């Protein structure tokens, strides 16, 4: 069983298990979700009792992983790129505290925004935090890198960032499992018990040594082996590839039987002299990197050295969106391929609510209840219910970041908008909506928060929601008046009553919460198949 068929995400998870992982921490987010799911399903992980529970959000996941590292054990935290914004405080400061047990932070970027609000490049965070970053070009390299990343992390006592992108995360191929039977670290406190205390007086010294460490990492053999230079016959054009872009180049070069001097970069910071290997040989440089033009900007410096540089900044490669073999072929000046035209008959088929989804019934009622007030007053959030932006509902007016529905509704209410409504999912609410609700309660802001409770993280495939069964108590604990915490079941047969409840709360001049609870039909049908007697039925809020 040393040859496994794995997604890039799964290769990272398997490697972490094989490298002696003791704790995995994550919040679901495409394209990173399968890392945690793989560990949760792994028999090895279960036998070793590797911690693998979902966290409330990426920040708590990051900090919990840091706590495990403090106690001397190896930990991994995984998130989608925007999750690193949520975890950024802990992440950036963890570079200064350093680690005890090895710590890997996986950020899965989504260029071309297949399932995201933006296409930010997590390599920036590596540089920003002065944390080394590994960027695998293949599933096998992802597997191998995890071992080196843990070792590098423990050698320099620094967290290591691993940056992957959608196409690596969600592509399946054969991976050789090479390293087995690595023992987990034993519980061991840091030698210096104030290592993690960032009082300014201590932090200043630590920051100085972080800068030195970051410089030394450039020349470490563990990172060096992933950066390679292969010479070619030509001397005009040299090509620099980063991560998965290397595959697209190899695909094209193998097909047209051409070679160029090629420098592959897969770890950051990389030593400048490897750049000189190629810039000294060639008159022109083409840079292929997935995401932002980070290496390209670094190479251009403040004043260009005279060498011609082609990349995203001069338009040779599109400034945004993911790479593909066609873009690379064009950048190399190869003739275009024959391409069939797509018929005008083909109509867009956007994602939509599943048949029978409770969110659809919730929106039908909300549209009706809001009708007298006119459009433009529903702030929403990240999840399946974001589809409320599309026809036939076209109801929501914002989707910005996790939790922003509640707080934007408060701000708009402060400006005089009434009623001001937030629609947020159950898992998103416990991720980042609770603090906003506390803001609302503290000044009795006239907002109505609709919690679309399907008792799962639906959009990412049905992961456990930490909110399930706790929502009304959480809202009461935060301080919402119990009379204005309303629960309803979003079903067509309850439509008239649900509209009535919504209208009442929309008219209330204080903070109110409507919990619209009905289990996600996808998870419900899976559960019924697996558990026909419904012994383990999830009890949403309104069935207590």
């Amino acid at each position, binding site marked *: 069983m040393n040859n496994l068929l794995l*997604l890039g995400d799964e290769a990272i998870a398997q490697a972490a298990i094989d490298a002696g992982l003791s704790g995995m921490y994550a919040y679901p987010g495409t394209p990173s979700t399968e890392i945690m799911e793989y560990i949760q399903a792994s028999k090895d992980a279960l036998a070793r009792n590797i911690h693998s529970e979902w966290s409330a959000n990426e920040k708590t996941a990051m900090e919990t992983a840091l706590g495990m590292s403090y106690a001397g054990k190896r930990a991994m935290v995984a998130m989608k790129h925007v999750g690193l914004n949520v975890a950024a405080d802990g992440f950036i400061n963890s570079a200064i505290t350093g680690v005890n047990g090895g710590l890997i932070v996986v950020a899965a970027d989504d260029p071309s925004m297949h*399932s995201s609000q933006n296409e930010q490049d997590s390599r920036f965070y590596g540089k920003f935090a002065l944390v080394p970053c590994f960027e695998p070009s293949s599933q096998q390299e992802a597997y191998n890198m995890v071992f080196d990343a843990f070792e590098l992390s423990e050698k320099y006592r620094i967290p290591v960032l691993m940056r992957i992108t959608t196409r690596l995360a969600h592509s*399946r191929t054969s991976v050789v499992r090479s390293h087995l039977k690595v023992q987990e670290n034993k519980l061991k406190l840091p030698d210096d018990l104030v290592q993690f205390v960032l009082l300014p007086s201590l932090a200043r010294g630590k920051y100085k040594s972080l800068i030195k460490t970051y410089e030394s990492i450039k020349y470490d053999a563990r990172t060096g082996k992933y950066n390679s230079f292969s010479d070619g016959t030509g001397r005009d054009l040299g090509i620099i590839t980063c991560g998965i872009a290397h*595959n697209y180049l190899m*695909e094209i070069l193998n097909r047209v039987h051409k070679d160029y001097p090629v420098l592959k970069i897969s770890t950051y910071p990389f030593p400048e002299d490897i750049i000189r290997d190629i810039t000294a040989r060639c008159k022109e440089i083409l840079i292929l990197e997935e995401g932002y033009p980070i290496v390209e900007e670094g190479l251009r410096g403040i004043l260009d050295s005279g060498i011609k540089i082609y990349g995203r900044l001069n338009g040779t490669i599109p400034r945004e969106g993911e790479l593909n073999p066609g873009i690379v072929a064009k950048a190399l000046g190869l003739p275009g*391929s024959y*391409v069939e035209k797509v018929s005008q*008959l083909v109509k867009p088929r956007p*994602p939509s609510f599943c048949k029978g989804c409770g969110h659809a019934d919730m929106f039908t009622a909300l549209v009706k209840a809001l009708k007298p007030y006119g459009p433009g007053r529903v702030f929403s959030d990240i999840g399946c219910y974001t589809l409320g932006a599309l026809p036939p509902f076209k109801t929501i007016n914002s989707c910005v970041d996790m939790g922003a529905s509640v707080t934007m509704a408060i701000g708009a209410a402060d400006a005089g908008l009434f009623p001001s409504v937030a629609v947020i999912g159950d898992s998103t609410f416990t991720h980042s909506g609770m603090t906003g609700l506390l803001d609302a309660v503290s000044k009795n802001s006239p907002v109505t928060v609709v919690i679309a409770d399907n008792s799962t993280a639906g959009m990412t495939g049905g992961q456990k929601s930490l909110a399930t069964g706790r929502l009304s108590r959480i809202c009461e604990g935060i301080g919402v008046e119990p009379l204005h915490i309303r629960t309803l079941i979003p079903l067509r047969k309850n439509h008239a009553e649900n509209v009535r409840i919504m209208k009442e709360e929309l008219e209330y001049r204080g903070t109110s919460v409507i919990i619209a609870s009905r289990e996600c039909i996808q998870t419900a049908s899976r559960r019924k198949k697996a558990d026909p007697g419904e012994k383990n039925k999830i009890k949403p809020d309104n069935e207590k």
Partner: protein
Amino acid sequence: MKNDIILSGVGGQGILSIATVIGLAAIENNLFFKQSEVHGMSQRGGNVESHFRLSGSPVASDLIQYGHADLIISVEPMESLRFVHWLSKQGWLVTNSSPYINIPDYPPVDEILKEIRKIKNNIIIDANTIAREVGSVRSGNIVVLGAASPFISVPFASLENAVKKLFQKKGDDIVEVNLKALKAGREFTGR
């Protein structure tokens, strides 16, 4: 040997099962492959595509270049047309003729099929009807795979073995229905 395959359809129609069957057959024949999947938002009733790259030598790119696919396997007719810019001049398009209508402006099916027939190498199969005949409408995806199987460089017996492996957990009946579905698709194409 190289087979670059685009799999297309609507989220939930069983594209990943097709990919898994080809993958298992590839392993049995010691072939190399990379299979790129779509997860997340698009799975909710939107169009989905998967790139499957099968080869006798290691595969570099996870993605197929426009104009270079040898085969499009589609479980939905309009979705087969959405991806024709991937198809090479000599490539084959194999599609189900039964539409999945979940949008208000779905074009007339006749017009779609007419458009598909303009592709030089096309096979249009009523997979839903055939699947119903062999026992379960849910096996439509495997019928389409059967119809496409002559253009995939693995022995038919390997695809059968893969179907057995994939559906094993669901019981002998499901395995049997899907084997019949695979065979019925193959017989339809008749190569």
